[in-house]
């Protein structure tokens, strides 16, 4: 027995055993159980099979629709802000023009080190509705009246997206910088000989060759955007915001599942989120040609 365990054949299975166990216990099992729960009505000590009724209720649940709209809105603006700009910053940072690259990279990465609590505390105070809060002072410079930032829809999302930009611009820029390292210098040299402009080089070399990195960043951004919860939880100091303007899909899952202990209904919410996230990502990958084998990357 001991001999078998030490053999070259058995060793790899011993090494991967922790993953197999953890995969079975903490991934497959909860995933299946949440699928089953989504067809049940779960009360303490009493479980009732109700078929697709949770999903039917979700179709008519206005608050859920609001949450989906909020999550999409947040995701959309984070994609707009957190892909093109970090890409351009990275291209600029990679050029010969910028000195002290290490210092700049370090500084732009700093916000990613903070926990969502610390970031939330800072921005909650900055965007407070008090006349003396920073953002209202900035408005006052331009002769504008103070705004109740976190009580109005548009300004609330401005605040949420600001937090996201502050935390993730540097990180995404570093992703793009890593991608840029893989583009051979000869391409740029050849383009220079042909008399290409800086913009032309960006448009025809940098942008297309950054595609694998862009797809990676896009994929994780879609997930992070749709699954956002804690940022809103921090800005409104809890899961409740005026007219649910800060409620996200995960926030609604938390409210139903944890706060109200309706595990079945909350499971249905989670699975709808999973379906949405997977669908968007498959479409995105398909449109980007990640599934076609012809393309040589």
């Amino acid at each position, binding site marked *: 027995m001991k001999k078998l365990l030490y053999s070259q054949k058995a060793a790899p299975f011993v090494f991967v055993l922790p993953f197999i166990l953890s995969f079975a216990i903490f991934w497959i099992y909860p995933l299946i159980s949440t699928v089953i729960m989504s067809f049940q009505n779960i009360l303490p000590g009493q479980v009732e099979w109700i078929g697709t009724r949770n999903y039917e209720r979700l179709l008519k649940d206005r608050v859920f629709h609001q949450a989906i709209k909020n999550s999409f809105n947040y995701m959309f603006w984070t994609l707009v802000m957190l892909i093109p700009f970090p890409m351009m910053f990275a291209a600029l940072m990679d050029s010969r023009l910028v000195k002290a690259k290490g210092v700049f990279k370090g500084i732009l990465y700093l916000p990613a080190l903070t926990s969502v609590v610390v970031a939330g505390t800072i921005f909650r105070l900055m965007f407070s509705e008090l006349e003396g809060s920073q953002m209202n002072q900035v408005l006052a410079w331009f002769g504008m009246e103070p705004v109740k930032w976190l009580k109005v829809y548009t300004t609330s999302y401005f605040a949420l997206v600001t937090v996201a930009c502050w935390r993730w611009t540097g*990180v995404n820029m570093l992703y793009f910088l890593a991608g840029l390292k893989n583009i051979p210098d000869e391409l740029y040299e050849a383009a220079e000989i042909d008399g290409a402009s800086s913009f032309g080089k960006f448009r025809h070399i940098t942008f297309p060759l950054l595609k694998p990195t862009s797809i990676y960043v896009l994929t994780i951004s879609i997930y992070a955007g749709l699954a956002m919860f804690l940022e809103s939880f*921090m800005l409104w100091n809890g899961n409740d915001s005026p007219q649910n303007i800060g409620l996200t899909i995960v926030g609604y899952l938390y409210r139903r599942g944890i706060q109200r202990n309706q595990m079945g209904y909350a499971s249905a919410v989670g699975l709808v989120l999973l379906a949405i996230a997977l669908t968007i990502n498959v479409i995105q990958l398909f449109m980007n040609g990640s599934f076609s084998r012809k393309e040589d990357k």
Partner: protein
Amino acid sequence: MNNSLNFGSQNQIKTSIATILANLFFVVLGFIVIFPFLTIFFASFRPGQELIRYGLSLKIDPANMSINNYVFLFSGTHSYFTWFKNSMVLTLLTVTLTLIVCYFVAYGLTMYDFKGRNLLFFLVIATMMVPFEILMLPLYKQMIDLRLINTTAGVILPRMTAAATIFFYRQYMMGLPKALLDSGRIDGANEYRICVQIMMPIAKPAFAAMAILSSMGAWNDMLWPLLVFRDASKFTLPIGLNTLMTPYGNNYDLLIAGSCFAILPIFIIFIAFQRYFIDGMTAGAVKG
């Protein structure tokens, strides 16, 4: 006048203007990024009651500044350092276990050819396709059933095999020569000795990168510990700080000074090991 020489110096001027503009751009951007840190740093020297009444102001008023908040942080009666200690212990345990387990798994997946290897690697990647936020609910129920709620094990166990960490180790180890394994075997070492005594020292840079990245993740983690821990005596720093967001007593004094102090350990690690941070973080993006 030589025309081409003139052209050259004009180009030089152009380049130096571009250099100034590009650097200026990052100076401004860097300042915008640092600004929130500066405000909370300055705010930590002001009385909390004032923050509640007037908000985070842009003005700096030296007459109103004192180190009272920090005096209270280090000598007052509150749970801050209990949370700090809890976070330390949880971070150390999580990082140690995650790194060892993920290294072994990646080692098995990289160094051996066996049936089902590709399937297993596919499953590792598949776990990344489901956001944790969806699994947290059934996992929470599972932890209650397993009586792991309110325990450190309950926080660590479900997250020990992190797909991204396995992926990183694999990327790193694919570049290592497998001949080392054979020479180890010829010397009579068994498979596990080779893994620990020969290969682990070679994989040190990968350990360094992952140690830093995963300690940052564990130190700042909030959602899952928030669900698992119930007693205030077990709270980690992020959960504890969150409970201070009520305008009573000295809460805000502690919140602001405590937030600044909570950033400190990660800042120090970051400044000391900046290179590894970036290596570990960007590994997935290039060949993903």
